[in-house]
């Protein structure tokens, strides 16, 4: 147990260090930019500029600004958006968390559930046409970029067939196309992962013992096969979260979902630096936390490493 807590402390330390590094780099990179961030800067008089700078705290020396930024950050204050006058970034983002989180969850849920089912069927029916179809689905889902999926699905199902709304946010039906788009990659990856994992597991001795007990093919797959294949699937959650974040940027944009990703792209286009910084930090923090949780979770659910608390050795 002592071993485990040391492992934990080390992980948290590295996590905080990473986050600090990201915040610091982001801050100095953005503040080292030549010029100032205002729209129509040329039209402003020096006096106006000075007032604006003072309001934004840009007149102080850089190290002081850095300290102030950190102090504010600790209170959850990301500063004021340049794009929307006097709108605190925190408030701006809070309004947009809902749709992003909803889409993310829907996508990861449908994606992994579908992927696990497909992977399992394909492992059980190895080298049949079912297996080939799943393999093709997996390679397509893994290869085709999600914005290409988004565009094609939108064109086919919204523009041509009018089954789903083209874009915007409202009823559940608005979430279907973006969810499907975002679910593609997790589905493909988990299907492939589960298939390989299952094939390996189904060849192991304990599966033969399970067969000798009189369990049927599918009983074995569900009770022993799936159980042993699902645990390593947790390691896929980290990469999945990363690809969802990346995907959400374009997918939310294409379907005009009022989420964080859409705001990010808007902020990039309008050079809204406080918001860009805030979202960069938010994304990094989320990713770091997810990776940490995955690491912990893996230790918790796999009985083989639960006691020792060490990292699972790659076989």
């Amino acid at each position, binding site marked *: 147990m002592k071993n485990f807590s040391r492992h934990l402390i080390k992980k948290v330390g590295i996590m905080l260090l*990473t986050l600090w590094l*990201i915040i610091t780099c982001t801050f100095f990179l953005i503040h080292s930019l030549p010029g100032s961030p205002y729209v129509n800067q040329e039209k402003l008089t020096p006096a106006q500029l000075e007032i604006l700078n003072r309001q934004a705290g840009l007149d102080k020396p850089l190290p002081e600004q850095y300290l102030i930024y950190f102090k504010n950050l600790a209170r959850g204050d990301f500063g004021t958006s340049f794009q929307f006058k006097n709108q605190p970034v925190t408030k701006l983002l809070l309004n947009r968390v809902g749709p992003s989180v909803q889409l993310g969850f829907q996508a990861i849920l449908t994606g992994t559930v579908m992927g696990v089912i497909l992977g399992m069927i394909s492992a059980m029916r190895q080298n049949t046409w079912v297996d080939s179809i799943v393999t093709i689905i997996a390679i397509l889902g893994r290869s085709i970029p999600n*914005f*290409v999926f988004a*565009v094609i699905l939108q064109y086919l199902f919204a523009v041509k067939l009018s089954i789903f709304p083209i874009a915007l946010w409202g009823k559940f039906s608005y979430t279907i196309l973006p969810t499907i788009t975002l679910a593609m990659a997790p589905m493909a990856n988990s299907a492939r992962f589960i298939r390989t994992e299952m094939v390996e597991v189904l060849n192991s001795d304990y599966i033969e013992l399970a067969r000798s007990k009189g369990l049927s093919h599918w009983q074995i797959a569900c009770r022993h096969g799936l159980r042993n294949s699902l645990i390593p699937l947790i390691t896929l959650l980290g990469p999945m979260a990363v690809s969802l974040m*990346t995907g959400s940027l374009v997918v939310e944009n294409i379907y005009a979902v009022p989420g964080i990703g859409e705001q990010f792209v808007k902020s990039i286009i309008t050079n809204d630096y406080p918001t860009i910084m805030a979202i960069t930090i938010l994304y990094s923090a989320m990713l*770091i936390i997810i990776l940490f949780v995955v690491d912990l979770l893996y230790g918790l659910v796999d009985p083989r490493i639960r006691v020792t608390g060490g990292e699972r050795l790659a076989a």
Partner: protein
Amino acid sequence: MLPEEFELLDLPPNAFEPLEISGAGADGGAGAGDSAGAPSLSFFQDAWRRLKKNKGAVLSLFILALIALLSFGAVFISPGDPNKQNLAYVNLPPKIPGVTINGFNGAAIVAGERVDKYVLGNIPPDVYFYLGTDGLGRDMLSRLLMGTRMSLIIAIIAAALDLGIGVAYGMVSAAAGGRVDGFMQRALEILSGIPTLAVMILMLTIFEPGIVSIVLAMIITGWVNMARVVRAQTLKLQEREFVLAAAALGASKAKIALTHILPNISGVIIVQMMFSIPTAIFFEAFLSFIGLGLKVPMASLGTLLSDGYKTFRFLPHLMWAPAIVLSVIMICFNLLADGVRDAFDPKMKK
């Protein structure tokens, strides 16, 4: 004493004489020996032989070679200047000589009716745009070839740089060992915690988007995986007898690394690089799509797709062409990478 089915017909009279065995039982079964004389294959020949058996990978390699040939060859034999604007030929749908299928015959649906836009625009009958033209009257096929070329160049440069940095870092870290290795590993761990996406967007909001800044943005975190894999493999190899023997004979660390370790981890490096190329293509297209990509008049698959998307309700051909090419390239690279990995290490199928 005798079993019923025991028959002694047609047996030679000396059947029950002891058998003289030459070399008394030295080798058991008939034909159990190794089939000697099979040519021994080098590591790469063996991998190549296995890769050739993988139909998907071979087909992918062929398609990729074709795409590369077309897009790079187009510098010399382009159907038209990809940047030449001709406002008389704006937004024309694809038209291929002799093809009458809707979508490739110059016809398009305007206000609910299918009309020949080439006739409508008073375009000379001997003018064909195989993939149509865009909003500035530029030939789409030429732009597509140029964009593909650009995407491939960016991806290959980024992958090559990832490889260089990653291999050097990984090998140095493994060879140094001890505290240096520990420090270098912590640094890697921190870098890998930073989302690639955040770094890239930050870099491109600060620097003017262009080939250099896009490549730079991609390699900041891109080389981390390569470094990890190389370090792990190097550590494993350092324990092997032939490396220990070289060290015992007084070879320097650098010499061991270059002559003994590098050739032996080249398979792993190639596999890793095969996977980083499609990743780079994806990110380049992704950045272009959200408006952080190359600036006009340069074009990549991402910018073409992004432009095509803006008008895809009315001019879908401008979106389909880059979307299909991008998807095909991605699929082929992934299939090829899978094939190469299986060929180099049949056990590593995951």
